[in-house]
């Protein structure tokens, strides 16, 4: 079978990464409009268990590429392996996740195929001459719509959580095993290891986080936020630039490349709300954001939004938090 749409699956060896379902949803939607077929390519080593979990996936065919050389992710090896599959499948559209892996594989494939690539998309709509895609620009405060002429093959990568469907139909795809011939030239990238840092402080345990972003401007302006976190009995967290500049240690970084937190309260101060930051805090129970820019994307996910200067509000917050703590102590004292 030669499906017109090929999806490159992401997984951890035993479970599909949820972004794969976003891709399958987009694939099925486009396929039904165009009367196309959808295939999903699963690359890795010892993926049999994974294939078992995909028995009812909403695609027409699953290509499985199971080989020891695919055990560790390596862009050189993976891009070559996907490119070899393409010689057998010749899709019109390749969909990948806009992820660490997807960014490398999509760029590598597009160059090999001389195909137009658009990354970081939120939506795709097929048109008679190609595709319309929607993607963020200018810091994410704006959405652009682009019209892409269809080429022999187009490559598009999509953001996590962009699925247009709540539920996927059940299908029973055919599974086709492929084999990767061993590398002819030794890969120019060699994976030597994988590490996980150990964090000194665990902000995932805090019920309340006061999170600071680039909006605080200078390191010397950090102390009031530490005071506020203390007055509220919570911990301090930060967006990446604050950690990059060395103002707080990496264990405070929330987001895609930091930690994922789900506190009862997340108070975002001077944080714009980039997709990479939001990825690490969107499930917080109560999100309050203070930002001077009313169009900042953080307000998309905030339950309460305050448009204003953090430096005007924070001193008042500290006072009020201390007063409230005093009140609680007093009332605690009288009732006991």
């Amino acid at each position: 079978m030669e499906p017109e749409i090929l999806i490159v699956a992401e997984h951890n060896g035993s479970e599909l990464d949820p972004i794969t379902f976003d891709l399958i949803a987009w694939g099925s939607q486009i396929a039904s409009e165009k009367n196309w077929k959808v295939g999903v390519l699963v690359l890795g080593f010892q993926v049999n268990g994974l294939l078992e979990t995909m028995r009812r996936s909403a695609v027409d065919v699953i290509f499985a590429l199971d080989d020891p050389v695919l055990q560790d992710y390596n862009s050189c090896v993976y891009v070559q392996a996907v490119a070899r599959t393409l010689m057998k499948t010749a899709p019109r559209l390749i969909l990948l996740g806009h992820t660490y892996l997807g960014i490398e594989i999509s760029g590598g494939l597009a160059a090999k195929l001389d195909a137009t690539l658009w990354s970081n998309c939120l939506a795709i709509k097929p048109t008679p001459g190609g595709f319309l895609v929607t993607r963020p620009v200018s810091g994410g405060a704006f959405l652009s719509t682009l019209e892409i002429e269809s080429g022999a093959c187009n490559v598009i990568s999509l953001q996590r959580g962009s699925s247009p469907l709540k539920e996927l139909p059940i299908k029973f795809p055919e599974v086709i095993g492929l084999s990767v011939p061993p590398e002819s030239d030794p890969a120019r990238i060699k994976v030597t290891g994988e590490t996980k840092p150990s964090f000194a402080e665990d902000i995932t345990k805090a019920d309340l986080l006061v999170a600071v972003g680039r909006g605080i401007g200078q390191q010397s302006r950090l102390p009031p936020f530490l005071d506020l976190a203390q007055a509220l009995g919570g911990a301090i967290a930060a967006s990446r630039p604050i950690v990059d500049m060395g103002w707080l240690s990496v264990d405070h970084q929330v987001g895609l490349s930091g930690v994922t937190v789900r506190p009862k309260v997340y108070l975002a101060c001077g944080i714009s709300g980039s997709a990479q930051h939001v990825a690490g805090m969107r499930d917080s129970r109560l999100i309050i954001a203070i930002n001077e820019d009313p169009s900042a994307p953080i307000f998309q996910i905030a339950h309460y939004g305050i448009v204003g200067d953090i430096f005007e509000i924070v001193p008042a917050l500290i006072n009020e938090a201390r007063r409230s703590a005093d009140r609680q102590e007093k009332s605690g004292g009288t009732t006991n």
Partner: protein
Amino acid sequence: MNIVVCLKAVPTNVKDPVPKSDGAGILTEGDCFMNASDDYALEQALLLKKDFGTRVTAVTVGSVRSQDILHVSLAKGADEAIRVDADEFDPNIVSFILSRALRDLSYDLILTGVESSDGMSSQVGISLGAQLGLPYVYAVTKMAFGNGEDRLLVTRELGGGRYQTLEVDKPALLCVQSGIAPLTYTPPVKLIHARRKGVPSRSLSDLGITGEELARRRKTKVIEIKPLEKNSSTQWLSGNPEQLARVIIDKISKAL
């Protein structure tokens, strides 16, 4: 040893971006600054220059509005800066132009940032590396030379606090993640000097890129740009700081 660093000038405080009339890009106003992760890529290149005497060349594709970031790169210590005079927005086209510009340069290493704040594609670096036939790595947080200066020892992010360590053959393209090295101060005197000296620009025809070739690669039109729609379930709080503080602390106390 030679390092090329790709830098992009990005507009800040963008108010009302609109598609260009021919759809070939986005019109914005305001000052341009060096893209955040590119600043770190440059810092990393200059650290290698200090340790290994590497020659550092900064390259940008952009209109005259983007040339000041090259002045900054020279003031910080780059040996040479080149601006390719083209106001392009499509990462497919920008990476192609860069691949042509780099064809005439010698390099052991190409560094880019991870993502530009205006284009947000995280694509130009990898696409450039792939077009030049180089190994490429995205989101590099550490790098060093191993085995003499033959191989690159690279640490890269995989997200969620996971990191991979790699050995990469030279020449290679690395997309540098922000935070890789501390940013250094740009001495104003050097900046004034660099601005006075100026930077050379090269036209697309200098690079042997014809109008037809560019037109053939133009497969995308920007047809609309609009601000994010406001989320209707966000509740807006207003008032003076004291009033706001009372409301916020009340909401917080109830949620804890």
